[in-house]
């Protein structure tokens, strides 16, 4: 009585393959237009502009160009997001915290090399680095030297994943220089500063959560993120140091986009008065002069990344994981001596 179980197999195999095939379709139809001229764009951005994009996308969908466009969105640490796109995360529009994360995609042949050639140099929003403190600033932390005092805990994210962290450190470095320190002093300052950091989260948003959760005396933050926290009724104050860095956030359409026309329309919309105003409502400094609702004071000693020779130079000098100034400090940091 030799009865084979073989006939079971096709049924089993079929049952196994169907869901995989289904999900494969779901995966590969990324951004595929499905009926009615609907287009789904994938927006991949760094961690903080989510609230702004929610409103901007809604506004975009009110316009003729955006009528039939929906979005999938991903937010996370700038460096992480950039690597994910380089590793195959589908994206039509990318916005990062800083230019080097865009450069990675240029190198990976995903973003065109001329992404920074529009009239705004590819930059869609500005901000500055601020020092956020507990409500009422009980420790009197106002400027860069206050951050390296003994017993002060500073929260700033990991510069090897977070764009915000790189802005923070360059602001601190430049701020110290502007206050009369030598380069060697400023290097030592960075080391002292990082010694006071008990936890380096992956992204600026994670750091904000850590700070809100009760850890640390000061938080180095995007101005927009500090404003965002206040808008959400979180108890924190912030100071804009006199000497701080201008943050410039780049945006681009990818070459790999399946809907480049729609993606470009969206990026164009980002520069419209409507979108720029919505950005400024959410704490960003607009790059296009508009009737911003918020008053953004210009710090007397504001500098930008060109002060240090631009990002390409800075990336090698400071953020090379093996030989950069920050890379070496991070290597040398033992277990933080926090309580």
């Amino acid at each position, binding site marked *: *009585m030799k*009865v*084979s*179980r*073989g*006939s*079971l197999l096709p*049924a*089993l195999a079929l*049952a*196994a393959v*169907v*869901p*995989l095939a*289904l*999900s*494969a379709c*779901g*995966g*590969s139809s*990324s951004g595929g237009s499905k009926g009615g001229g609907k287009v*789904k764009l*994938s927006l*991949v951005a760094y961690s903080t502009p*989510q*609230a702004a994009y929610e409103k901007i996308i809604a506004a975009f969908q009110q316009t003729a160009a955006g009528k039939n466009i*929906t*979005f*999938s*969105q*991903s*937010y*996370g640490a700038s460096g992480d997001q950039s690597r*994910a796109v380089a*590793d*195959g*995360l*589908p994206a039509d529009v990318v916005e990062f915290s800083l230019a080097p994360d865009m450069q990675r995609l240029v190198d990976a042949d995903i973003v065109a090399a001329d992404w920074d050639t529009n009239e705004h140099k590819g930059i869609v929003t500005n901000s500055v680095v601020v020092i956020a403190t507990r409500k009422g600033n009980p420790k009197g932390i106002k400027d860069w030297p206050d951050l390296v005092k003994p017993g002060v805990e500073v929260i700033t994210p990991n510069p090897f994943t977070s764009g915000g962290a790189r802005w923070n450190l360059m602001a601190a470095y430049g701020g110290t220089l502007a206050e009369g320190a030598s380069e060697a002093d400023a290097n030592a300052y960075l080391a002292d500063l990082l010694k006071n950091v008990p936890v380096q989260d992956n992204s600026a*948003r*994670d750091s904000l*959560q850590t700070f809100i959760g009760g850890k640390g005396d000061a938080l180095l933050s995007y101005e927009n993120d500090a404003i*965002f*926290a206040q808008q*959400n009724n*979180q108890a924190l104050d912030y100071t804009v140091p006199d000497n701080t860095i201008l943050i410039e956030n780049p945006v681009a359409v990818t070459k790999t986009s399946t809907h480049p026309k729609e993606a470009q329309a969206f990026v164009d919309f980002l520069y419209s008065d409507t979108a720029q105003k919505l950005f400024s409502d959410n704490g960003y400094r607009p790059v296009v002069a508009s009737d911003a609702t918020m008053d953004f004071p210009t710090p007397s000693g504001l500098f930008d990344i060109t002060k240090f020779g631009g990002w390409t130079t800075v990336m090698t000098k400071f953020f090379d994981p093996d030989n950069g100034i920050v890379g070496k400090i991070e290597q040398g940091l033992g277990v933080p001596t926090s309580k």
Partner: protein
Amino acid sequence: MTRNRTSAPRWGLRVVVLAYLMFLLVLPVVVILYRTFQHGLSPVFDALTTSDAQHAYKITAIVAVSAVVLNTVFGVAAAILLVRHRFPGRRILDAVIDLPIAVSPVVVGLALTLVYGRNTAVGSWFGRHGINIIFSLPGMVIATSFVALPLVVRAVGPVLEEIGEEQEQAAATLGASAFQRFTRITLPSIRGALAYGVVLSLARSLGEFGAVAVVSGRLLGKTETVPLYVLDLYNNFNQTGAYAASTSLVLVAVAALVASRFLRPRGAMT
């Protein structure tokens, strides 16, 4: 049983155990329910009906159901193999099936990325054929299958063993095909255990966080599942949304608990 003399220790034990469960289990759930419905039903309703939320539910359902179907097919096949057949390497296979229990979800995600990522041999081959595995649904399904892998096998196996194969043999003697024997005899007798295993797998699959967090790319509106969405909302100070989404998952978990109580194989416990 007259155990009056033990009533003091008994009360002591009761107090300790109840306090432990109270703080660890009951209060957290009560607090989240309270915080969710603090301002009434409508904010909860609003939070759960945003397009991102609905998409997250849809993705979660697709991923979980796919993984459960795969694991059910695998589980039944593996259980039949292990119980009904003797072959070299059987004990190894048996042991390997338990492996996923001991592997951290994050490690699962990393391991899958290393094999199926876009920059790997396998991943790029699929990429050239238009299929993304990592940062896409297939990767999420595989990750979910991994973590829930043993559940169906381990639910079905003991029952399969219990029923023996006399009936199947009899049917075979009467000329029933393998398929007939499976659908007419084997399946009905393992139905309860299978349903139980499926419920377990479904609960586990719906809630998977770590492995999916690594492989999904967390595209809101595309590859973001409800558990990922919860963290996302939480990080953006959208407490109402985070608590509402959490509560919806709590309710699913409770439903799974109740279902599993009914489906629990007989004789397990009162």
